[in-house]
């Protein structure tokens, strides 16, 4: 009953949605990275009440499963955005909100917390003396940031960020809840057409694994390249 040809056919079908899935994951990664950087920055300022509020939010996002948040955003986002735009006299039909937007918003918020931890860790690895040295050489804050902090922090954060990227790709299988078709959803569709779920799921696993192998290889190369001149 297990047919290797079906696995191959499913594999080809599933490959069709890989670019879309990767793009979606990349958008989420970039957005969550920016949001995470903002969180880290705000937290480092240590403003009394704000710090506590963000702390609570962080722990809430970290402690709730993505699927729960996806439900919440699915129900709440159309209403919230319609209300918000209503303040500026822009009318929005809540139902016209794209399901891809719902996924991007949910996952970006979700993973921003993890990203902020990655950035914080990378920042910690940076020797404080370097900043002092830069300042003593007359670097402005922007210059220190651009020439000293960011290049090194980027390298430190790269492996973890890459990890986060893989986690996002896998987590996107939840997006089918709101009709966004990713790799796993495609596998289910292919499986439904031929009634051979097992083959389709095996093909999906192979696709995921393939992506992981290629990405790991590429990022390793990139990291080695970036480390040159700092190590």
């Amino acid at each position, binding site marked *: 009953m*297990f047919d290797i040809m079906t696995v191959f056919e499913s594999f080809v079908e599933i490959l069709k949605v890989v670019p879309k899935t990767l793009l979606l994951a990349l958008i989420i990664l970039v957005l969550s990275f920016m949001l995470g950087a903002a969180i880290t920055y705000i937290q480092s300022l240590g403003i009394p009440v704000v710090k506590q509020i963000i702390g609570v939010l962080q722990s809430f996002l970290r402690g709730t499963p993505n699927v729960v948040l996806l439900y919440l955003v699915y129900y709440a986002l159309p209403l919230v955005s319609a209300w918000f735009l209503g303040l500026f006299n822009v009318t929005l039909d809540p139902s016209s909100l794209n399901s891809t937007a719902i996924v991007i918003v949910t996952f970006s918020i979700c993973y921003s917390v993890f990203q902020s931890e990655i950035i914080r860790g990378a920042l910690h690895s940076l020797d404080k003396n370097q900043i002092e040295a830069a300042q003593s050489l007359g670097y402005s804050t922007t210059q220190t940031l651009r020439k000293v902090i960011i290049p090194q922090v980027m390298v430190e954060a790269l492996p973890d960020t890459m990890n986060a990227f893989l986690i996002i790709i896998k987590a996107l299988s939840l997006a089918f809840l709101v*009709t966004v078709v990713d790799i796993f959803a495609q596998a289910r569709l292919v499986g439904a057409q031929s009634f051979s779920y097992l083959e389709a799921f095996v093909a999906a696993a192979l696709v995921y694994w393939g992506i992981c192998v290629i990405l790991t290889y590429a990022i390793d190369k990139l990291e080695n390249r970036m480390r040159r001149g700092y190590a």
Partner: protein
Amino acid sequence: MRKLLLLTSFMAVLLVLAGCGGEESEASSEGDEAVKAVEVAVSSSSRPLSYVGDDGELTGYEVELLRAIDEKLGDYEFNIEGASDSAGEIGLDTGQYDLLAQGLILSEEREESYLIPEESNGPSLMKIFATGDQEGEIESLDDLAGKKVVPVTPTGGVYNLLNAYNEEHPDDQIEFDTSDGGIPTSDRLQEVNDGVYDAFVNPSNLGQQEIIEEAGLDIHVTEPVEINPTYFLIHDSEENVELRDKVSEALAELKEEGVVSELSNEFYGEDILQYEAE
């Protein structure tokens, strides 16, 4: 010693995997003479078909029907378990479950892959639930072209129905998205009520009428657009042939004795057997 243990367990896993590919008759061969255990998978959240009741026990039309069959079959003992849609079907493929009950309608692929009792367990009525102001506008599948249709799960019969319709009507395509079945029926009905979607194609045996009345929704329910008998699917193995025939017999008896109608009235509020003749 440890290494030996590891090795044997590894070998065991390999053997099991190898068994998946070839014949898988070992799976249900325990206790031949005595009472045979039958692993049954049902959906755990398809009220009133099968769901977890207030007391935490599975109940519902199909579950109670299965229990009635179990009582009739002395040689078999049903272990009814809740499983998600695709998990149930995969489990039936691999032989983890012997019998699957999810209000399933027949398709060519299913007839090829599984053993199917001759006797159905009741018809499933496919109806369209449309926004209240669409009354007169949406009455059948022909009216759905150009309408916003609630996303459909790829494991369900609705998916097959709409695909079959689109194949037959190339100029009059129904556009629909697919999605996971995670959004509850009650929320889908609410969305139709609010006009997010125009129409919701759904088997009517999921308690929609109750939801509509309770929430006071303005929804137009059409006549059945399709009537399909639903069947229990049985894992394809030599030993299960007997099980299939016995289940079929028991179903026929239960229909005659009026037990099926009773259960139908209890869970659906109407006797669904009246539609079966058509």
